[in-house]
C-alpha cells in the first residue's frame, strides 16, 4: 500500500511544483500580488508531499517489501536495518527522490528566512526553484519511478551494493546533495535579480549566506567521499579524478570562487555581471554532474545506472535551465553597471585573480572529464584521461591561488598601498622558505623539492593569514580587545585559509613519503615498514549479517612496544557474490598504518598490502577546517535575520 501512497504524493508534489513555478513568476511579471504569494504555500505543500513519499519509500525498505522493484533490486532481508534505511538513497531512483526532497527543504528554508524580501523578488526566487523542482520530479515520474511494482514478487531482494554498506557512504550522498542542490538557491537569487533588474549589493548580501551553507555541505560531502574512498576501496588512495568525483569538485571550485566574488560585490559593488554568471555556473555544474553520473555517458567506478532515456531527459532539462539562464544573462548583462572604482593594486583585483584561477581550474577539470566524450563524439576513439593530466594541470593553477591567499587579506579594498603591504610581508617569503628548509631537512631529505615547496607554501599561507589577522588586531589598543573586535566571518576566513595549509601538508607528505609493501605472509611471519613491524598472527572466519569474512589478525609493534592490533577482512557477500576488501587502519595525527588482505596463497599464507601513510589525515582535517571556517562566517552577526535590510525594490 505504501508504494501507492508514495506514488500519489509524488504526483501531488509535481502539481504543487508546477504551481510554484508558474504563478509566482507570472504574478511578478504582471504585478498580481495574489499570484506571487502562491509560491510560498505551494513550496511548503510540495515539501510535505515529498517528505511523505520519501517516508513511504523508506517504509518499503524497512518492511522488506520486495514487490517494489527498487526495494527488490537494492535490498535484502538479511541486510541490517540501518543499511536498509540508507539503501533508500543507495541507487538511482531513490537518490533522485532525495535530490528532489532536499530541493524542497531548501525551498521551505527560503520561505522561512526570506520573509523580509520584497514580494516580487521572493516570488521570482521561489518560482525559479519551482521550475527546477518540476523538471526533477517529472524526471523521476517519467524515467525513474522508485515506486514501480514488481510482479510477481520475488522471495528476496538483490541486496545493496556491498561498497555502499558502510557508514561513510550512507551520509555522503545526503551531504553532497545538500551542497549541490543548495547552489540552486544562489542560482535562483541570481535569476530573480536578473529578471527583476535588481542586481545590487543587497542581492549579494542575501546570496552570501545561502551560498555559504551550500558550500559548507559540499565541502563536507567531498571530504566524506574522499575519506570513504580511502578506507573502503582498499587501495590506499584518497582521490582518483574519477568523473563522479570531478562532478562534485567542479561545483565546489566555482562555489568557492562565487563566495569570494560575492564578498567583492557586497562590499564594493564590483564584478556584478561576473558574480551573477558564477552563480549560474555553480548550479549548472551541479546539474551537469547529475547528468554525467546518471546518464552513463562516462563510465566510472561510481556510476550507478546507465540509461540513455534518462540521459536524454536530463540533457534536455540541462539545456533548458542553463541555456535559458545564459540567454537571460546575455540579454540583461549589458545593462549591469558596476558602481565600484578600484585601483590596479587592490583587494578587488586580487579577488578577481583568485576567481580567474579557480574558474580556470574548474574548466580544466571539465575539459579533462569531457575530453574522452568529445573524442568519442568525433569518432576519434575512446580514451580515458587519467590522473596524470589532472595533476599536471591542477597543481600549476592551485599554486598561485595558495600564494595569493596568503597575502590577499593584507591588501585594502579600493586602493592598497604596495609599500604598506610590503612592509608587513617583507620577511614572509624568507621566513617561510627557511622554515620549509629546516623542517624538510630535519624530518625528511632536503633534496626532496616537492616536500620543500609544499611545506614552504604551507608556512607562507599560515604566516600570511596570521599576519593579516594580527594587522587587524593591532589597530585596537590591546590584543584582547583586538581579538574580540574581529568579526566571526573574519575568523572564518582565517580558519578556512589555514585549512588550505593543513590540506597542503597532508597532500604533499602523504604523496611523497607513503610506503607501500606487498608481501607474502604466513602465520607467524613479520614484515617491517620503517620502524613498524607487522606480525601476522593468523586468519579466522567470521560471520557477518549478510557476508562471510576471512579476518586476519596483525600485531603492529615498534621497538617491541605493541602499537595496535589490526583486523583486516576479506568479505564475500552472499547475495551479490562480490568480494570486498575491508582494510584495517590505525589512524594517527602524523601517520596511518593500513593493512589490506590480498589473495590467499599456498599453505595458509596470504598476500598482504601494508601501507604507511604519513600525515594523510591532514588532508581531511584541512577540509574540515575549511568547513569550520564557513560555519563561523555563517554565524556572523550581520546574517542574523533582523539585521538584514530588506531588498529595496519596487
Amino acid at each position, binding site marked *: 500500500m505504501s508504494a501507492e501512497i508514495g506514488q500519489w504524493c509524488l504526483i501531488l508534489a509535481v502539481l504543487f511544483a508546477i504551481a510554484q513555478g508558474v504563478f509566482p513568476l507570472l504574478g511578478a511579471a504582471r504585478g498580481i500580488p495574489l499570484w506571487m504569494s502562491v509560491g510560498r504555500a505551494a513550496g511548503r505543500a510540495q515539501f510535505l508531499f515529498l517528505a511523505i513519499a520519501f517516508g513511504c519509500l523508506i517504509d518499503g525498505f524497512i518492511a522488506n517489501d520486495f514487490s517494489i522493484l527498487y526495494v527488490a533490486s537494492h535490498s535484502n532481508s538479511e541486510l541490517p536495518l540501518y543499511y536498509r534505511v540508507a539503501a533508500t538513497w543507495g541507487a538511482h531512483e531513490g537518490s533522485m527522490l532525495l535530490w528532489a526532497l532536499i530541493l524542497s527543504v531548501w525551498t521551505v528554508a527560503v520561505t522561512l528566512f526570506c520573509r523580509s524580501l520584497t514580494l516580487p523578488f521572493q516570488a521570482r526566487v521561489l518560482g525559479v526553484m519551482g521550475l527546477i523542482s518540476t523538471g526533477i520530479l517529472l524526471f523521476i515520474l517519467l524515467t525513474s519511478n522508485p515506486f514501480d511494482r514488481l510482479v510477481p514478487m520475488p522471495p528476496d531482494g538483490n541486496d545493496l551494493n556491498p561498497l555502499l554498506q558502510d557508514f561513510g557512504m550512507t551520509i555522503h550522498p545526503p551531504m553532497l546533495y545538500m551542497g549541490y542542490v543548495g547552489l540552486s538557491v544562489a542560482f535562483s537569487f541570481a535569476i530573480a535579480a536578473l529578471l527583476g533588474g535588481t542586481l545590487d549589493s543587497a542581492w549579494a548580501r542575501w546570496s552570501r549566506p545561502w551560498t555559504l551553507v551550500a558550500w559548507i555541505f559540499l565541502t563536507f560531502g567531498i571530504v566524506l567521499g574522499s575519506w570513504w574512498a580511502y578506507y573502503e576501496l582498499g587501495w590506499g588512495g584518497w582521490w582518483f579524478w*574519477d568523473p563522479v568525483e570531478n562532478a562534485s569538485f567542479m561545483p565546489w571550485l566555482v562555489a568557492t570562487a562565487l563566495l569570494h566574488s560575492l564578498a567583492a560585490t557586497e562590499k564594493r559593488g564590483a564584478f556584478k555581471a561576473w558574480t551573477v554568471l558564477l552563480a549560474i555556473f555553480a548550479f549548472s555544474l551541479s546539474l551537469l554532474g547529475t*547528468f554525467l553520473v546518471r546518464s552513463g*555517458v562516462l*563510465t566510472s567506478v561510481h556510476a550507478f545506472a546507465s540509461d540513455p532515456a534518462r540521459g536524454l531527459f536530463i540533457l534536455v532539462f*540541462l539545456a533548458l535551465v542553463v541555456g535559458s539562464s*545564459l540567454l537571460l544573462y546575455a540579454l540583461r548583462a549589458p545593462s549591469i553597471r558596476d558602481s565600484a572604482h578600484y585601483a590596479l593594486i587592490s583587494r578587488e583585483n586580487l579577488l578577481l585573480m583568485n576567481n580567474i584561477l579557480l574558474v580556470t581550474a574548474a574548466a580544466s577539470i571539465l575539459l579533462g572529464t*569531457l575530453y574522452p566524450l*568529445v573524442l568519442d563524439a568525433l569518432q576519434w576513439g575512446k580514451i580515458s584521461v587519467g590522473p596524470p593530466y589532472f595533476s599536471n594541470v591542477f597543481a600549476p593553477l592551485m599554486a598561485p591561488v595558495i600564494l595569493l591567499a596568503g597575502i590577499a587579506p593584507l591588501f585594502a579594498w579600493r586602493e592598497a598601498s604596495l609599500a604598506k603591504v610590503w612592509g608587513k610581508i617583507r620577511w614572509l617569503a624568507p621566513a617561510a622558505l627557511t622554515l620549509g628548509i629546516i623542517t624538510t631537512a630535519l624530518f625528511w631529505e632536503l633534496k626532496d623539492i616537492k616536500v620543500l615547496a609544499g611545506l614552504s607554501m604551507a608556512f607562507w599561507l599560515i604566516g600570511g593569514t596570521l599576519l593579516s589577522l594580527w594587522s587587524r588586531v593591532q589597530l585596537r589598543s590591546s590584543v584582547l580587545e583586538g581579538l574580540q573586535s574581529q568579526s566571526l566571518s573574519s575568523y572564518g576566513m582565517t580558519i578556512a585559509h589555514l585549512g588550505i595549509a593543513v590540506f597542503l601538508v597532508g597532500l604533499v607528505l602523504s604523496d611523497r613519503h607513503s610506503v607501500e609493501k606487498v608481501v607474502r605472509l604466513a602465520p607467524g611471519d613479520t614484515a617491517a615498514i620503517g620502524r613498524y613491524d607487522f606480525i601476522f598472527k593468523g586468519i579466522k572466519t567470521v560471520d557477518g549479517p549478510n557476508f562471510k569474512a576471512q579476518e586476519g589478525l596483525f600485531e603492529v609493534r615498534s621497538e617491541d612496544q605493541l602499537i595496535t592490533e589490526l583486523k583486516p577482512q576479506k568479505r564475500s557477500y552472499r547475495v*551479490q557474490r562480490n568480494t570486498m576488501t575491508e582494510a584495517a587502519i590505525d589512524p594517527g595525527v602524523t601517520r596511518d598504518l593500513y593493512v589490506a588482505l590480498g589473495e590467499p596463497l599456498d599453505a595458509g599464507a596470504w598476500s598482504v598490502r601494508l601501507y604507511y601513510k604519513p600525515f594523510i589525515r591532514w588532508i581531511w582535517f584541512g577540509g574540515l577546517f575549511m568547513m569550520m571556517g564557513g560555519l563561523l562566517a555563517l554565524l556572523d552577526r550581520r546574517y542574523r535575520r533582523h539585521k538584514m535590510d530588506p531588498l529595496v525594490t519596487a
Partner: protein
Amino acid sequence: MRFLIPLGVFLVMVIFLAIGLSLDPRNLPSPLIGKPAPTFQLSKVEEPSQALTPESFRGRVILLNVWASWCVSCRQEHPVLLELAQRQEVPIFGLNYKDQLTAARDWLSKFGNPYEASGFDQDGRVGIDLGVYGVPETFVIDKKGLIRMKHTGPVTPQALEKDILPLVERLKQEP
C-alpha cells in the same frame, strides 16, 4: 556581444553531450566478431625476453582481457578475474594497453596476477587492431583463434555467469 560567449560555449557542449549520449560506451558491437584475432608479437609483461603471440593460445578457448595500471575500472574487475583464474575454467591472457612496464608489473605484484601471460602493448597498436575503445575490455577467443565475443567495461560476476562462461563452455565443445 561578449555576454553571449557563455551561451555559445554551453551550446557547443550540449551538442557534444547529445552525441555522447547516442554512443553507448559499454555496448559497441565489435566489427571483429567472427573474425580472426589480429596477429601480433608482444613481449610479456612478466618476462620481457619472451614473446606473446596468438600461437600461445591457439587450440584453446581463452579470454583476452585488455587492462592498464592507470585504469580505475580495471581495479574493480580485478578480484573477479583473480577468482576466475583460481577456478581454472578458462585461461585468461592480458593485453597491457598503453602502460609503463614497471607500473604494470607493480600492479600485478600488488593486486595479484590472474593472467597466464600479458602482452606489453606500449603504443597501443595491437589494441587498435583489436578495436579497443576503452579499458577494460574482454574478448572471448575460440580454438581457431576467432573473436567470438567482446565485453566492454569491467567484467562483473553477473556478466561472467550469464554471458561469458556459458559461451566459453559452448566453444569448448566445438572442434
